[in-house]
């Protein structure tokens, strides 16, 4: 990197990085054992303490923010397992976003295809719900017409990058219709109404996991909530925020806040840990816009994950009694953002453990990232694969029939993991909503 670019980046880092947070890190190292990239490599630079030291060193003028610095910031999964481990309460998630934001403002250097993917995904696709819908329709045609089979058989997937091809195999059956088209925008509560909730439908969830979205709505309604799905809501902005495209993230946040405020809901429900975590931090995302303070706090305060609201406020449908004494073995893979940011890792476990025919077996390091992390598995394939392989060793050891997850990214990653590394043909990955629905509502 040329000297002048590095200097310009340093200046931007100086402005964007919260120096208070950088000094709050007392370098105790408590976050190291929590960090997946440190676990994989054993390198200090690949740890939260190391990354914070690098950020501080660039600001302090001890080091030049060179290519390697940029790469290191991108190596971080953003799983934020380091935050709960930190005695000093360093807001690592904010620091990494600030660093990436600064880098994004300067970089001329994404690897070619990463650049194309990012542009396509961030600018052209995710912010546009209708295009996501089209993507869903396109996928449906692709799957329905036998094109998928053809592509798979002929190995045309090999034409994609290897990593994209891997992902292609994990795509769910897509219906092509979103949740609103199927259920409408207002679904009444079953029985006495406990509260009105706004459903955050998500882009990936709504175009590729529409069934899960439908079941989310029906679970909520069974549990006593009236569900409103504001039509004008859009992408949560998580991917943008985590990769440094803060400006776009803010625009998306504002329009979501407007949509849900107009709907006048008591809670805002997400069924994707990755979306939920950014939604619950909209107040932070918009912290430097005083005009938005009140609204963003209104919003952030109301965000809850589907599992959490069911446990905390819901009137849970009685699970059907098991037909036989056969209990299914289930293991739960945490969504990092649900666990580390929304602090909602207990609720899914409570729900699962309460089912009469389910035996919940914890896998070792269930709380550790699976390597999916937004588009991390596309941009950092090597590390993502290494992490996934270790994750599957732990999942295999439980001999579970189901690996239950709370986020579409994790779900696809676990499917990929099963495809590549499962030592049991019967094991399946499912979203917790689908799993609960089948056992609580359907029968």
């Amino acid at each position, binding site marked *: 990197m040329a000297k002048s670019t590095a200097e310009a980046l340093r200046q931007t880092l100086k402005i964007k990085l919260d120096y208070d947070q950088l*000094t709050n890190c007392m370098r105790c*190292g408590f976050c190291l054992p929590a960090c997946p990239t440190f676990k994989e490599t*054993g390198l200090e630079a690949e740890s939260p303490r190391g990354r914070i030291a690098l950020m501080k060193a660039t600001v302090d003028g001890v080091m030049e923010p060179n290519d390697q610095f940029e790469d290191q910031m991108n190596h971080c999964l953003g799983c934020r397992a380091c935050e709960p481990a930190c005695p000093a309460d360093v807001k690592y998630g904010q620091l990494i976003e600030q660093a990436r934001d600064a880098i994004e403002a300067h970089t001329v250097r994404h690897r070619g295809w990463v650049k194309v993917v990012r542009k396509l995904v961030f600018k052209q696709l995710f912010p546009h719900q209708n295009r996501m819908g089209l993507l869903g329709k396109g996928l449906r045609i692709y799957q329905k017409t036998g094109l998928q089979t053809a592509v798979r058989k002929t190995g045309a997937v090999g034409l994609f990058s290897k990593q994209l091809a891997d992902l292609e195999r994990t795509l769910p059956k897509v219906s092509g219709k979103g949740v609103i088209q199927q259920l409408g925008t207002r679904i009444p509560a079953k029985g006495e109404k406990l509260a009105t909730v706004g459903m955050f439908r998500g882009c990936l969830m709504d175009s590729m996991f529409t069934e899960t979205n439908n079941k989310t709505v029906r679970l909520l309604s069974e549990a006593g909530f009236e569900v409103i799905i504001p039509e004008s809501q859009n992408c949560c902005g998580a991917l943008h925020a985590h990769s440094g495209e803060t400006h776009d993230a803010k625009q998306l946040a504002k329009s979501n806040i407007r949509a849900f405020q107009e709907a006048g809901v008591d809670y805002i429900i997400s069924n994707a840990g990755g979306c939920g975590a950014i939604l619950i931090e909209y107040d932070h995302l918009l912290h430097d816009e005083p005009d938005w303070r009140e609204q963003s706090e209104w919003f952030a305060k109301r965000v809850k994950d589907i599992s959490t609201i069911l446990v905390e406020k819901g009137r849970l449908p009685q699970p059907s009694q098991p037909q036989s004494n056969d209990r299914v073995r289930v293991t739960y893979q945490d969504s990092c953002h649900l666990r580390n940011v929304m602090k909602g890792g207990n609720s899914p476990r409570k729900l699962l453990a309460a089912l009469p025919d389910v035996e919940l077996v914890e896998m070792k390091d269930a709380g550790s990232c699976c390597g999916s992390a937004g588009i991390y598995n596309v941009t950092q394939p090597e590390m993502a694969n290494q992490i996934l392989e270790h994750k599957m060793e732990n999942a295999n050891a439980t001999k579970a029939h189901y690996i239950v997850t709370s986020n579409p990214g994790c779900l696809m990653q676990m499917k990929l993991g099963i495809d590549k590394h499962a030592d049991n043909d019967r094991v399946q990955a499912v979203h917790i909503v689908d799993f609960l629905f089948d056992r609580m509502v359907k029968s």
Partner: protein
Amino acid sequence: MLDRAIVAELREAVGERYYKEDQESLVTHSYDGTPMLQSLPDGVIYPGNTAEVSAVMTILNKHRIPLVSRGSGTNLCGGTVPVQGGVVMVMHRMNDILEVDLQNLTATVQPGIITKRFIEHIEGLGLFYPPDPSSMSISTIGGNIAECSGGLRGLKYGTTKDYVLGLECVLASGEIIRTGGKLMKDVAGYDLTKLLIGSEGTLAIVTEATLKLIPPPKHKKTMLAMFTDLYGAARTVSRIIENRIIPATLEFMDNPTIRVVDDYAKLGLPLNMAAILLIEQDGDFETVERDIELISEICHAEKADQISIASNQEEALKLLTARRSAFTALARLRPTTILEDATVPRSKIADMVLEINRIAQKYNVQICTFGHAGDGNLHPTATTDARDHEEIHRVEEAFAEIFEAAIQLGGTITGEHGVGLVKAPFLEWKVGSAGIAIMKNIKQAFDPLNLLNPGKMFAKETRRRVVLNRG
């Protein structure tokens, strides 16, 4: 940056990937857990076995390049800050448990193994390795040995030095020595094992250690005793020991710490207490029950305001959390947390706490004190902000006076964190000039060229003593 030819030799010794000198590696090995210190090394090396360590040391010795051995960099004395540049040697790759000898009850390990991982493995085998520094989830056995780390169980079970039976080390010359072994008795010559424990990487590089294991206690009980009178708490500590009861854990928190902990952890602790003692006993069922009863009686006799005994593991854990959150809570108060390590004879705890409070007030700094009352090891902890130079200066002055007070009470400048860079100017206060001279001679004998962790332990100048004015 080192000469290219030397770098080539080092790469040859450990393999291309395991010597690094890019900015990223240098910056991330320029600090440790000690606040406000930073100095870049010239290179970072990751050896994979003893032979490589020896080869590296031979090369560095030939070219007179300093070496800092490093575990996880959690020490709090600047012990791994490469103040004179040179090479930082990270021991993480050498992390195997080589043997657990169930007949002799010993374990032989490489130095880079994480303490907690080792303890979990040993406990899985139904055995017990007591040293438990609070940093054990990331500190290494090598670092524990080099600092002679202690923990909550130090009172009854001792510290790292009581569990190291033998060592394999690489000297500054590159030669390899072995000390001790799986022997419970060994008086063949000077006890080099004990000398090397706590030598802070200044005498040799530990490449293997044989550790003593013991059977685990069968039963455990935990209690909290709260006092409105500081002396009551302190007398309780002395009386427990006088009565020939050695609890497994006997921890102390002063009033400022109680307030902070409660505010943070919402444990509902009474805020008017001058001190809280956390007491745990372990052993046979009958002994534990009897000891806890006796301890309660002593607490009552010394006018404890409240005593609570945990009825089950869950409650015990809650009590332990109160003590463990002390550091966590303090760390959240202000950006910079300076945790110190003054130690006094356990009969002097109350005097020392009062001294600390007086000194904190004198210098107008916030210092909260908690620590291992049972062994007199206190952690006066200043919460401050590294960017406020004037305040930091006052904090430093206050700590100098605290060390002075500790020594006057028959104590020491560090009970478990080591001398390193930070405490070097105070070492002579404790050991005297003849003591320093003999220590320097020992250093000279091991490391004539002063290559191993230079700049640590011995300061260029001793700090002048603070004159205490008690007017």
